[in-house]
């Protein structure tokens, strides 16, 4: 394509186009790293397979040997992919909570959704209480989901009241964290030894109960919510400049906030009910995306999604690689390994968006 000199865009527009190109490259880099991480994740386990063989088994399952096919397709792939969908969901939920609540600390964890889910799960494990009687094998995740949604709806309901500011909502979330943690501690105090260890293990967060069904459910939620957020990309970005200013640009602030809260609740509650407490992703994923890509939601949203997926997938790799033969609970690794990395990132980048 040739452009006559007069048609050349002025310098700032050119610089902006370059910025866009750089961001697309970063997103592509994230995606490539994610693919690599997933492949490595699948290759690791009690039986170690070369990454190349794993890739071959994934691409043409018919040609692989029976045992490897079962291990790769039925055991490891659901785990590896659940890490991706859960990481993406939690990070996207955190990103939009931070956006609509104008608070860098907002996440499914800090607003009490994780604590509520833990309490719901513990109700099932300790007392055998099913909040929705029926599918007893799914009692734990259903309880967890119900409590997380209840917490989300409480926050959601209160945020519709007149005169409730975003600060109030965040404080309320923190109050919920403490309330549910206290209730959980009470349950643990009365729990049998067996139930206690189940609860403790659940709250550490784990991908080991992954199934293709869980992968499908979490992926479906992502597929539904992502376009809904994407359609609102400009409005969501505008909200970060303040409510009054966004309203002045024609953004229906209250309605947008409510819609986003509903989507975010589902986006956070489902993964949490499947894998337990994984606290770190919902805060760090969005912050990594914000530091590298800025807050234009056209890039921030996919960035947060990919960053969250990559962090949890890489953590899954680490949880298997750190102690050969053992899979450490992933919730522990995210914090232990992620925090130093995160601290380094915020201290070196030094951009103060909040």
């Amino acid at each position, binding site marked *: 394509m040739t452009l006559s000199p007069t048609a050349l865009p002025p310098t700032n527009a050119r610089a902006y186009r370059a910025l866009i190109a750089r961001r697309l490259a970063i997103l592509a880099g994230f995606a490539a790293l994610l693919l690599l991480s997933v492949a490595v994740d699948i290759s690791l386990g009690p039986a170690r397979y070369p990454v190349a063989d794993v890739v071959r088994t994934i691409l043409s399952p018919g040609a692989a040997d029976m045992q490897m096919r079962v291990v790769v397709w039925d055991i490891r792939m659901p785990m590896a992919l659940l890490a991706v969908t859960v990481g993406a969901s939690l990070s996207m939920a955190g990103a939009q909570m931070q956006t609509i609540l104008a608070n860098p600390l907002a996440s499914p964890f800090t607003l009490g959704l994780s604590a509520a889910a833990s309490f719901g799960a513990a109700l099932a494990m300790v007392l055998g209480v099913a909040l929705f009687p029926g599918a007893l094998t799914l009692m734990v995740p259903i309880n967890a989901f119900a409590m997380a949604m209840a917490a989300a709806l409480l926050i959601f309901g209160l945020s519709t009241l007149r005169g409730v500011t975003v600060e109030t909502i965040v404080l309320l979330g923190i109050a919920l964290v403490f309330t549910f943690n206290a209730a959980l501690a009470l349950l643990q105090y009365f729990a049998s030894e067996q139930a206690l260890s189940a609860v403790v293990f659940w709250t550490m967060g784990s991908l080991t109960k992954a199934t293709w069904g869980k992968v499908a459910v979490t992926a479906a939620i992502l597929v539904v919510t992502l376009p809904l957020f994407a359609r609102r990309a400009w409005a969501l970005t505008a909200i970060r400049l303040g409510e009054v200013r966004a309203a002045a640009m024609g953004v229906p602030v209250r309605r947008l906030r409510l819609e986003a809260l509903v989507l975010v609740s589902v986006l956070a509650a489902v993964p949490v009910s499947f894998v337990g407490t994984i606290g770190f992703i919902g805060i760090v994923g969005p912050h990594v995306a914000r530091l590298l890509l800025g*807050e234009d939601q056209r890039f921030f949203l996919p960035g947060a999604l990919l960053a969250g997926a990559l962090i949890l997938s890489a953590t899954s790799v680490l949880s298997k690689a750190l102690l050969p033969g053992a899979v450490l609970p992933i919730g522990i690794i995210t914090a232990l390994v992620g925090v130093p990395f995160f601290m380094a990132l915020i201290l070196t980048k030094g951009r103060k968006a909040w």
Partner: protein
Amino acid sequence: MVTLALDQIGAGYGRQMILRGVTTPPIEGGALTALVGANAAGKSTLFRRIAGQLKGPGTVHFGGIDRTELRYMPQDTAMSAALTVFETIILALKQGGGWRLSAAELAQVEGVLARFDLSHLADRQLPELSGGQRQAVSIAQTLVTRPRIVLMDEPTSALDLYRQVEVLNALATYAEETGAVMLLALHDINQVMRSCRSVIALAGGQVLATGPTLDVLGPEMIRSLYGISCRVERCSRGCPMMIVDGVAQPT
């Protein structure tokens, strides 16, 4: 000719009414109009009512124009997000639009940055800017869609003297070029006398006077608006200016 007229406008928050029966003759476009009044006189409330953010009795008449061509710049300058100046302007341009940016849209952003002397800051992030720079960005953001009714709440409050003069000149030029109605809440009476054609004086949620700047802003009106005693005199070059003598004694 674009005009804006207010007919018995009221507005408030909850049960507390701030504005009562605000009525003005048609405000004509093509020059700056100042909205003056003490703190808490109801200036911001009036802007939000005209912009449709607050409901209330009365009618806002838009002459020769659709209300979608109205843009309102709030007073709050605390913009802080990981966005560059260029992106911040784009945001105002693309609300309700698609993801892609055309060359014409980029040129529009470039143009408004140049108009307000912001081109050199285009790739800076908002948190890196000074308060005054942010205010200038906010003004550019308001005008990027080329609105024909513009409400600006204290657009010069964070600017140094040079930038105040520069921005008010640029706004007056914009009004002349586009014929837009430009209603600005301003506190500096001398700047109002220098740059605004007409004035709406607001006190206690009601209009005290409207009309050409010098007809409205005499010593008596300034005294009843702000409670100060002053003179309005001509300088050696014949320009009117206000000289403050002190706080008015209660009468």
